């Protein structure tokens, strides 16, 4: 069973067993505009919750993508190099950024669930 959580920086994390898949939300991609490039971390890198894990660039902006949870990078989405548009077209699916082996599963408890994130986004306007 997979667990989906969100951060206030508009990242999502989906837990499959002890591997967490991370990406940016639909709201984030719509704010950025057309994504032109994604800078992904190296496999094996240790990331800390709340610290920069990746960078996503559009024509007019570059944004840090912060790790929603701490862990070790086990896989990155290499297909984004050739087709960064996936981040816009399918941010929750094919536009995923990286996978982490969780260091501290309890960190997920502090994140927003689907409803809380929806409310958070509405409050932004």
């Amino acid at each position, binding site marked *: 069973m997979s667990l989906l959580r969100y951060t206030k920086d508009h990242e999502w994390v989906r837990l499959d067993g002890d591997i967490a898949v991370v990406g940016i939300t639909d709201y984030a991609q719509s704010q950025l505009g057309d994504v*032109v*490039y994604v800078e992904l971390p190296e496999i094996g890198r240790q990331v800390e919750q709340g610290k920069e894990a990746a960078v996503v*660039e*559009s*024509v*007019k*902006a*570059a944004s*840090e993508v912060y790790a929603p949870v701490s862990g070790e990078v086990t896989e990155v989405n290499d297909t984004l190099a050739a087709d960064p548009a996936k981040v816009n077209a399918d941010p929750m699916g094919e536009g995923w950024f990286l996978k982490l082996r969780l260091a501290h599963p309890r960190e997920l408890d502090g994140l927003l669930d689907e409803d809380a994130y929806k409310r958070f986004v509405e409050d932004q306007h």
Partner: protein
Amino acid sequence: MRYLPLTAPDRAEMLAAVGVDSIDALFADVPAAARLIGPVDLPRAMGEIEVERSLSRMAARNVAAGSVPFFIGGGVYRHHIPAAVDHLIQRGEFLTSYTPYQPEISQGTLQYLFEFQTQVALLTGMDVANASLYDGATACAEAVMMANRVTSRRRAVLSGGLHPHYRQVCATYARFVGFELSAQDPRGGEKLARLIDPSTSCVVVQNPDFFGEVRDYAELARACHDAGALLIVVVTEILSLGAVRPPGAMGADIVASEGQSLGNALNFGGPHVGLFATRDTLVRQMPGRLVGQTVDADGRRGWVLTLSTREQHIRRERATSNICTNAGLCALAFTIHLALLGETGLTQLARLNHAAAVTLSERLELVPGVRLLNRTFFNEFAMRLPRPAAEVVEALAVRGVLAGVPVSRFYPGNAAVADLLLVAATEMTTAEDMDRLERGLREVLS
């Protein structure tokens, strides 16, 4: 005042429209203590005649390079600029246009910069070049910082043959940006490959070097790459690439160069034009502006500034550098001059330069006490004189000959180089010029 279109009636009506009594009301936010009552203590407005007289008087106090036999190089070279170049760059649409942020009305600028980028890549034998930087020295410092980012290391090895100003600029950036330099002795004898260790981000060499020597850096490139470091090659005389094997063919990762020799006058050292080229895999780490090709809404080919997320106005703290500008009009002058030369003209011009330097070197070697130090050179070489070169140069200046650069000007107090003189010859050097230098040297040294 001729540059101010508003008339007194205009001002009065506009103040009324704005709803204030006087212009002072619009400066009300200035603290009273800081308001100047009258004009600053400087001369009042002058017409064109007076300004021209004033600056012409200052100009007339200088010895123009073209008025005497002239042999000075040292990183800035006197070449002939075809008449068409200066006329074209003074077209108002080039001279008075802004950075091409609105591409629909800047295709002229964007297209010539795309041509410039292509020319620089072709000359240097690299994959891609940017739209220029301030000058060769800052391009060199930017190259080192790029190597640091790419390798995640912070120690750069600088050849002793690197132009001293470039070395000094690197040192300034190293101190404040936070990285290390291992700068080698200009007197030579360096074994650069042995200085590469796991903390080395790059090795920086110059070709031809500061003393004019031309070398093959292919082996050094391999040594760098084996150790995970980058090879940066600096070229201060861009014309040399009309004759010499380019850095790209030697395995360079970054080329940082001065482009002044094409299209740009001496101008007492500025403005000039920095060239920067690298490999495709490193393009996103390249500083400076980049022009890219694309299509418009009607499907027609056009150009835009691109990959701008590297730059400071977007990344702010995370920018790859704080550079906000390129050399614009100087890059245009370079592009036009090189377009006029083309493949055959550049090759021929390089031959003329090398031929002049070879002829001059052979003549000067015959002067008693003078020894040529170079095994190889392009259009500049180093000579050891029997006396300190600085005083020889002064004595020759008195005789109306600008004989070259004494190396001591860059390394004062370094006894080992006090007798060294750098001499340059270009397509502008005549046989009479060479006569005057040879005779002058014989006189001064006897």
